[in-house]
Protein backbone atom coordinates (compact mmCIF):
# COMPACT_ATOMS: atom_id res chain seq x y z
CA UNK A 1 0.00 0.00 0.00
CA UNK A 2 1.55 3.27 -1.05
CA UNK A 3 -1.01 5.71 0.23
CA UNK A 4 -0.64 7.04 3.71
CA UNK A 5 -3.39 6.48 6.20
CA UNK A 6 -4.60 8.90 8.79
CA UNK A 7 -4.85 6.93 12.00
CA UNK A 8 -7.26 7.79 14.73
CA UNK A 9 -5.49 9.88 17.29
CA UNK A 10 -5.75 8.31 20.67
CA UNK A 11 -4.67 11.05 22.99
CA UNK A 12 -8.12 11.09 24.55
CA UNK A 13 -7.61 7.57 25.91
CA UNK A 14 -4.28 8.43 27.49
CA UNK A 15 -4.42 8.55 31.23
CA UNK A 16 -2.11 10.84 33.12
CA UNK A 17 -1.83 8.33 35.97
CA UNK A 18 1.25 6.11 35.60
CA UNK A 19 0.28 2.51 35.01
CA UNK A 20 2.02 -0.28 36.86
CA UNK A 21 2.96 -3.79 35.72
CA UNK A 22 3.85 -6.45 38.29
CA UNK A 23 5.49 -9.62 36.99
CA UNK A 24 6.55 -12.84 38.66
CA UNK A 25 9.51 -14.55 36.97
CA UNK A 26 9.53 -18.09 38.35
CA UNK A 27 11.61 -19.95 35.79
CA UNK A 28 15.33 -19.87 35.19
CA UNK A 29 15.72 -21.38 31.74
CA UNK A 30 17.02 -19.27 28.87
CA UNK A 31 13.71 -19.39 26.98
CA UNK A 32 11.64 -18.48 30.04
CA UNK A 33 13.92 -15.61 31.04
CA UNK A 34 13.01 -13.69 27.90
CA UNK A 35 9.24 -13.10 28.33
CA UNK A 36 9.36 -11.18 31.63
CA UNK A 37 12.26 -9.06 30.42
CA UNK A 38 10.62 -8.34 27.05
CA UNK A 39 7.36 -7.35 28.76
CA UNK A 40 9.20 -5.25 31.33
CA UNK A 41 11.29 -3.30 28.81
CA UNK A 42 8.21 -2.80 26.63
CA UNK A 43 6.11 -1.55 29.53
CA UNK A 44 8.69 1.00 30.66
CA UNK A 45 8.94 2.14 27.04
CA UNK A 46 5.19 2.84 27.22
CA UNK A 47 5.84 5.01 30.25
CA UNK A 48 4.72 2.43 32.82
CA UNK A 49 6.27 1.54 36.14
CA UNK A 50 7.44 -2.10 36.30
CA UNK A 51 8.49 -4.48 39.04
CA UNK A 52 9.57 -8.10 38.58
CA UNK A 53 9.53 -10.58 41.45
CA UNK A 54 12.21 -13.19 40.77
CA UNK A 55 11.34 -16.32 42.69
CA UNK A 56 12.46 -19.96 42.77
CA UNK A 57 14.47 -20.78 39.64
CA UNK A 58 13.66 -17.34 38.30
CA UNK A 59 16.16 -16.00 40.81
CA UNK A 60 18.92 -17.39 38.56
CA UNK A 61 18.17 -14.45 36.23
CA UNK A 62 19.59 -12.17 38.96
CA UNK A 63 22.38 -14.51 40.06
CA UNK A 64 25.82 -13.10 39.18
CA UNK A 65 27.30 -16.51 38.38
CA UNK A 66 24.29 -17.80 36.46
CA UNK A 67 22.49 -15.06 34.57
CA UNK A 68 24.97 -15.07 31.71
CA UNK A 69 24.79 -18.83 31.26
CA UNK A 70 21.10 -19.74 31.47
CA UNK A 71 20.25 -22.86 29.50
CA UNK A 72 17.35 -24.38 27.65
CA UNK A 73 16.83 -28.15 27.72
CA UNK A 74 15.66 -30.27 24.84
CA UNK A 75 14.46 -33.01 27.18
CA UNK A 76 10.70 -32.84 27.82
CA UNK A 77 10.46 -29.76 25.63
CA UNK A 78 8.78 -30.74 22.37
CA UNK A 79 8.75 -27.11 21.21
CA UNK A 80 12.42 -26.60 21.98
CA UNK A 81 15.24 -25.68 19.64
CA UNK A 82 16.18 -29.30 18.90
CA UNK A 83 13.53 -31.13 16.94
CA UNK A 84 14.70 -34.59 17.99
CA UNK A 85 13.09 -37.56 19.75
CA UNK A 86 12.66 -36.75 23.42
CA UNK A 87 15.12 -39.42 24.55
CA UNK A 88 17.92 -37.70 22.60
CA UNK A 89 17.53 -34.78 24.97
CA UNK A 90 18.86 -36.99 27.76
CA UNK A 91 22.18 -37.53 25.99
CA UNK A 92 25.06 -35.55 27.52
CA UNK A 93 25.59 -32.38 25.55
CA UNK A 94 22.01 -32.13 24.26
CA UNK A 95 21.21 -29.22 26.58
CA UNK A 96 24.36 -27.41 25.46
CA UNK A 97 23.39 -27.86 21.82
CA UNK A 98 19.82 -26.69 22.42
CA UNK A 99 21.12 -23.65 24.32
CA UNK A 100 23.59 -22.80 21.57
CA UNK A 101 20.81 -23.13 18.98
CA UNK A 102 18.50 -20.79 20.86
CA UNK A 103 21.29 -18.24 21.33
CA UNK A 104 21.96 -18.40 17.59
CA UNK A 105 18.25 -17.82 16.85
CA UNK A 106 18.26 -14.78 19.10
CA UNK A 107 21.51 -13.45 17.66
CA UNK A 108 20.30 -13.92 14.08
CA UNK A 109 17.17 -11.93 14.94
CA UNK A 110 19.30 -9.16 16.53
CA UNK A 111 17.62 -9.84 19.85
CA UNK A 112 19.42 -8.67 22.97
CA UNK A 113 20.99 -11.28 25.25
CA UNK A 114 19.63 -11.79 28.77
CA UNK A 115 22.46 -9.66 30.27
CA UNK A 116 21.62 -6.95 27.71
CA UNK A 117 17.95 -7.07 28.72
CA UNK A 118 18.92 -6.89 32.40
CA UNK A 119 20.97 -3.76 31.68
CA UNK A 120 18.16 -2.21 29.63
CA UNK A 121 15.58 -2.90 32.34
CA UNK A 122 17.85 -1.62 35.12
CA UNK A 123 18.69 1.55 33.20
CA UNK A 124 14.94 2.17 32.87
CA UNK A 125 14.39 1.77 36.61
CA UNK A 126 12.57 -1.56 36.53
CA UNK A 127 12.41 -2.78 40.13
CA UNK A 128 14.03 -6.19 40.61
CA UNK A 129 12.59 -7.96 43.65
CA UNK A 130 14.70 -10.90 44.79
CA UNK A 131 12.59 -13.46 46.64
CA UNK A 132 13.90 -13.71 50.18
CA UNK A 133 12.54 -17.22 50.70
CA UNK A 134 14.27 -18.49 47.56
CA UNK A 135 17.51 -16.93 48.79
CA UNK A 136 17.14 -18.79 52.08
CA UNK A 137 16.11 -22.10 50.53
CA UNK A 138 18.77 -22.07 47.82
CA UNK A 139 21.49 -20.50 49.95
CA UNK A 140 21.84 -17.36 47.86
CA UNK A 141 23.29 -14.30 49.59
CA UNK A 142 22.84 -10.65 48.60
CA UNK A 143 26.43 -10.60 47.31
CA UNK A 144 25.54 -13.43 44.88
CA UNK A 145 23.03 -11.17 43.14
CA UNK A 146 23.64 -8.48 40.53
CA UNK A 147 23.62 -4.88 41.74
CA UNK A 148 20.39 -3.09 42.45
CA UNK A 149 18.06 -5.85 43.66
CA UNK A 150 15.45 -5.30 46.36
CA UNK A 151 15.29 -8.30 48.67
CA UNK A 152 11.65 -8.87 49.46
CA UNK A 153 9.19 -11.47 50.61
CA UNK A 154 5.77 -12.26 49.21
CA UNK A 155 4.06 -9.66 51.37
CA UNK A 156 6.19 -6.83 49.99
CA UNK A 157 5.63 -7.97 46.41
CA UNK A 158 1.90 -8.39 46.91
CA UNK A 159 1.78 -4.89 48.39
CA UNK A 160 3.47 -3.64 45.19
CA UNK A 161 1.22 -5.77 42.96
CA UNK A 162 -1.96 -4.74 44.75
CA UNK A 163 -1.81 -1.34 43.08
CA UNK A 164 -0.67 -2.70 39.70
CA UNK A 165 -2.92 -2.50 36.65
CA UNK A 166 -1.60 -5.81 35.35
CA UNK A 167 -0.13 -8.74 37.25
CA UNK A 168 1.34 -11.71 35.39
CA UNK A 169 2.94 -14.94 36.57
CA UNK A 170 5.54 -16.33 34.21
Amino acid at each position, binding site marked *: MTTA*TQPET*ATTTHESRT*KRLALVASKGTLDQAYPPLILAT*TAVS*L*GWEVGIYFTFYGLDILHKDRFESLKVASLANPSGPLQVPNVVGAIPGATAVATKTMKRWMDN*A*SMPTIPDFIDMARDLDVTFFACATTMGVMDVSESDLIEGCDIAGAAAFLDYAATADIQLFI
Partner: protein
Amino acid sequence: MTTNNTSGAVAAATLDTSGLLCPLPVYKAAMALKAMEQGEILELICTDPGSLADIPAFTRQRGDRLVEIDDRGTSQVFWIEKGTGA
Protein backbone atom coordinates in the same frame (compact mmCIF):
# COMPACT_ATOMS: atom_id res chain seq x y z
CA MET B 1 16.41 9.98 5.74
CA THR B 2 13.13 11.84 5.66
CA THR B 3 10.41 10.30 3.56
CA ASN B 4 7.31 11.89 2.11
CA ASN B 5 3.99 11.88 3.87
CA THR B 6 0.58 13.30 3.11
CA SER B 7 0.11 15.23 6.33
CA GLY B 8 3.09 17.48 5.74
CA ALA B 9 4.66 16.34 9.01
CA VAL B 10 8.29 17.38 9.24
CA ALA B 11 10.41 15.01 11.25
CA ALA B 12 12.88 16.40 13.76
CA ALA B 13 14.49 12.95 13.97
CA THR B 14 14.40 9.66 12.10
CA LEU B 15 14.83 6.20 13.62
CA ASP B 16 15.23 3.17 11.38
CA THR B 17 14.48 -0.08 13.23
CA SER B 18 14.55 -2.26 10.12
CA GLY B 19 15.35 -5.86 11.00
CA LEU B 20 14.58 -5.44 14.69
CA LEU B 21 11.83 -7.30 16.51
CA CYS B 22 9.72 -6.52 19.58
CA PRO B 23 10.60 -5.02 22.02
CA LEU B 24 13.41 -3.16 20.26
CA PRO B 25 11.44 -0.83 17.92
CA VAL B 26 9.30 0.37 20.83
CA TYR B 27 12.26 0.52 23.22
CA LYS B 28 14.42 2.49 20.78
CA ALA B 29 11.51 4.78 19.88
CA ALA B 30 11.02 5.56 23.58
CA MET B 31 14.74 6.35 23.89
CA ALA B 32 14.57 8.59 20.83
CA LEU B 33 11.46 10.43 22.06
CA LYS B 34 13.09 10.95 25.45
CA ALA B 35 15.71 13.12 23.76
CA MET B 36 13.09 15.16 21.89
CA GLU B 37 10.89 18.09 22.81
CA GLN B 38 7.10 18.05 23.10
CA GLY B 39 5.53 18.72 19.69
CA GLU B 40 8.53 17.44 17.72
CA ILE B 41 7.95 14.63 15.27
CA LEU B 42 9.81 11.33 15.16
CA GLU B 43 9.84 9.44 11.90
CA LEU B 44 9.99 5.74 12.80
CA ILE B 45 10.71 3.03 10.24
CA CYS B 46 9.76 -0.54 11.19
CA THR B 47 9.83 -3.97 9.59
CA ASP B 48 8.65 -5.88 12.67
CA PRO B 49 5.48 -7.74 11.58
CA GLY B 50 3.80 -6.54 14.78
CA SER B 51 4.49 -2.87 14.29
CA LEU B 52 1.12 -1.96 12.76
CA ALA B 53 -0.47 -3.12 16.01
CA ASP B 54 2.35 -2.14 18.36
CA ILE B 55 3.18 1.42 17.38
CA PRO B 56 -0.41 2.76 17.67
CA ALA B 57 -0.60 1.03 21.08
CA PHE B 58 2.74 2.57 22.02
CA THR B 59 1.65 6.10 21.16
CA ARG B 60 -1.77 5.60 22.80
CA GLN B 61 -0.19 4.45 26.05
CA ARG B 62 2.45 7.19 26.07
CA GLY B 63 0.06 9.94 25.08
CA ASP B 64 1.89 10.84 21.89
CA ARG B 65 0.02 11.65 18.69
CA LEU B 66 0.36 9.26 15.78
CA VAL B 67 0.22 11.72 12.91
CA GLU B 68 0.45 9.31 10.02
CA ILE B 69 1.21 5.73 9.01
CA ASP B 70 2.63 4.77 5.63
CA ASP B 71 2.19 1.02 5.22
CA ARG B 72 4.52 -0.21 2.51
CA GLY B 73 3.79 -3.89 2.99
CA THR B 74 7.08 -5.21 4.29
CA SER B 75 7.86 -1.99 6.11
CA GLN B 76 5.94 0.80 7.76
CA VAL B 77 6.79 4.42 8.44
CA PHE B 78 5.18 6.14 11.42
CA TRP B 79 5.23 9.83 12.19
CA ILE B 80 4.89 10.35 15.94
CA GLU B 81 4.39 13.75 17.54
CA LYS B 82 5.77 13.72 21.05
CA GLY B 83 3.21 14.44 23.73
CA THR B 84 3.67 15.57 27.29
CA GLY B 85 5.23 12.29 28.47
CA ALA B 86 8.92 11.54 29.00
